[in-house]
């Protein structure tokens, strides 16, 4: 059985192609992945991300607990700040990548991937100690992402954001504010998964439809339209943001996936720290690199990466990049593969298609615009 998000009816009305994703009926595309991708890069697009999980940690020891279960520093954050982080198992492998919103030392919100909501809720519930409450609020919260260069102006012009207009104008990347909307709390954060200026709105599920319609309607002149999961993936791929199940999973360490910047080994104890310390000492086995195909073909997840005919790794994500008009891949390869390694290829259904290593991110993000 697939669940419907509070915005399901809107997707059908907009003639979205619906697919089952992590147990939710989600739109994979509307007008076409490339057109939607370009809309977000040049104008503004709306994403239904209500399938994401929201787990709230509250109580006197909330901050302490959050700091112990994720790799980034939660204690050091100020109220209103957000961090990107991973939640590891004891082996230092990734259970999920997530955002942590710090309301206060006593209230922290974790936003997790839809596929992992149950797993992370169980994991956190099992670790729960005195002074900590762990609540899965996923079913009650709707989430809308408004992404693209016109996103700020669109929101500033809206009635919905009127109570926080000035604060929104000055809201910095990875910060959030809260306000009341018709008796329910709204979280408005400057975050996203596209590499563009953008915002994410969390609100009571039953109010999500009205807000979605109002903002989308108000933004029509700025080019606002709904965007499906297909473009969400190509948009995150170009700035090389990790996607759970691709660049991250329970067999991959954050150090391999290029996320050492969210692993704070000096902050004190946290789950997975010991394993990660050892791994850092010895050097991770693999590294995440970017590849550009030099011949025709599209690299896909799981395709072998070859050097002089020998397998040196696997593609984790690959697609035709709508912005760069090239076939590109992210791949996890042996760390010993030299920086300037030549003779690279991707095995596409038995055919070695020549590839060249190129720097990631493929696309320089505009999140600070």
């Amino acid at each position, binding site marked *: 059985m697939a669940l419907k998000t509070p915005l399901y009816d809107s997707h059908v009305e907009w003639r979205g192609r619906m697919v089952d994703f992590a147990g939710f009926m989600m739109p*994979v595309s509307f007008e076409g992945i*490339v*057109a939607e991708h370009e809309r977000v890069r040049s104008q503004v697009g709306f994403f239904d991300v209500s399938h994401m999980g929201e787990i709230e940690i509250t109580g006197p020891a909330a901050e302490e607990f959050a700091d112990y279960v994720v790799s980034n520093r939660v204690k050091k954050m100020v109220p209103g700040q957000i961090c990107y982080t991973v939640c590891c198992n004891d082996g230092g492998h990734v259970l999920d990548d997530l955002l942590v919103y710090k309301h206060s030392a006593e209230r922290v919100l974790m936003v997790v991937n839809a596929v992992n909501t149950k797993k992370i809720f169980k994991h956190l519930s099992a670790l729960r100690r005195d002074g900590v409450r762990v609540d899965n609020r996923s079913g009650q919260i709707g989430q809308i992402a408004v992404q693209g260069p016109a996103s700020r102006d669109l929101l500033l012009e809206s009635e919905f954001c009127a109570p926080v207009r000035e604060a929104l104008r000055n809201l910095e990347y990875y910060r959030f504010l809260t306000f009341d909307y018709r008796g329910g709390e709204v979280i408005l954060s400057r975050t996203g998964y596209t590499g563009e200026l953008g915002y994410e709105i969390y609100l009571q599920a039953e109010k999500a439809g009205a807000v979605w319609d109002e903002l989308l309607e108000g933004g029509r002149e700025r080019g606002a339209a709904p965007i499906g999961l297909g473009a969400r993936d190509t948009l995150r791929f170009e700035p090389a943001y990790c996607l759970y199940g691709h660049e991250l999973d329970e067999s991959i360490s954050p150090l391999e996936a290029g996320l050492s910047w969210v692993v704070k080994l000096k902050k004190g104890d946290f789950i997975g720290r010991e394993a990660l310390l050892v791994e850092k000492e010895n050097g991770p086995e693999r590294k995440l690199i970017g590849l550009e195909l030099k011949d*025709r073909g599209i690299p896909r997840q799981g395709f072998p990466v070859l050097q002089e005919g020998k397998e040196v790794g696997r593609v984790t994500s690959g697609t*035709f990049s*709508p912005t760069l008009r090239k*076939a590109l891949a992210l791949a996890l390869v042996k760390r010993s593969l030299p920086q300037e390694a030549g003779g690279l290829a991707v095995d596409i259904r038995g055919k070695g298609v020549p590839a060249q290593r190129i720097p990631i991110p493929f696309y320089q993000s505009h999140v600070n615009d």
Partner: protein
Amino acid sequence: MFPEECKYTKEHEWVFVEGDTAVIGISDYATGELGDIVYIELPDEGSQVHQMDPIGTIEAVKTVAELFSPVTGEIVEVNEAIIANPEIVNKDPYEEGWFIKVKLTDPEELDVLFSHEEYAEFLGEQEE
């Protein structure tokens, strides 16, 4: 949505016969399922193909599909325009977006393909 004068396959290719030559492409349903096509690989002119052999690859942003030959014969023309600009297939799958032309060896093979009516019925079942 799709031309009445064509024959169709379960794999969503269409075939239009002009004399002893079959023009082959993929249906509007197929382009819708695939989404934006970004890369097409086809056999060379002069190649021999057999009915229901995989003969090419259609890569879209999110997915990949094989092209099957609905007929047996020799490829007499390949649409170079769609190789250079695959989006033509999304825009115009039945005219500008044709794939190959095959000189038929055995026109009787066409009988096993779907008629327009049968394909419509088949698509109806797919939707259910």
